[in-house]
């Protein structure tokens, strides 16, 4: 699964740590999400999309 987290994060000037703190996960989880190695739960996908002011299907590309 591809994601646009890195791109959107850069747009809002957020670090991986910032995003991790905002959605309540470890920084490593954000790293694996960006690399497309981790399939998040719907809840986490929603939280990440919300933190990046986007819709889920704009952030996660299936």
């Amino acid at each position: 699964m591809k994601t646009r987290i890195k791109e959107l994060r850069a747009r809002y000037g957020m670090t991986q740590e910032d995003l991790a703190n905002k959605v309540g996960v470890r920084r490593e989880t954000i790293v694996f999400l960006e690399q497309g190695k981790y399939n998040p739960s719907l809840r986490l996908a929603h939280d990440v999309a919300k933190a990046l002011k986007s819709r889920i299907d704009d952030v996660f590309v299936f």
Partner: protein
Amino acid sequence: MERKTWYLLAFSAIVFLLAALIGFYGKDKQENITTDLVAIGAAILAVTVARELLYKGKAPVVDERTKKIVRFASSYSWWLSYVLIAILILVDQFNLATLSAQSVLGLVFFFMVFSQFALRFYFERKGDVE
């Protein structure tokens, strides 16, 4: 330090105290128990101190990914241990080796702990369990 760290330190202290009491007041046959308790106490203390130093007083954040990894690692570890026990039964049935109850228990005990940690480490590096 977080509360969990204090609890673990207190628990290791109790284990050491128990080992000392058994060492002083126990019978000769209980020498092994003292050694085992000292080893358990030392292991708990070492892991607690290493964890504290690694996270510098901050609690490691547990999230859905780490919880998922722990669940899957435990599950796979249980199945691997089941396979190990099946192999040991076959070894015993065909008299391929002489197995004592103590050696089998020890082997299964360490295998369960080691395989769970190894699988957790592997999945942590991989990122996910699938």
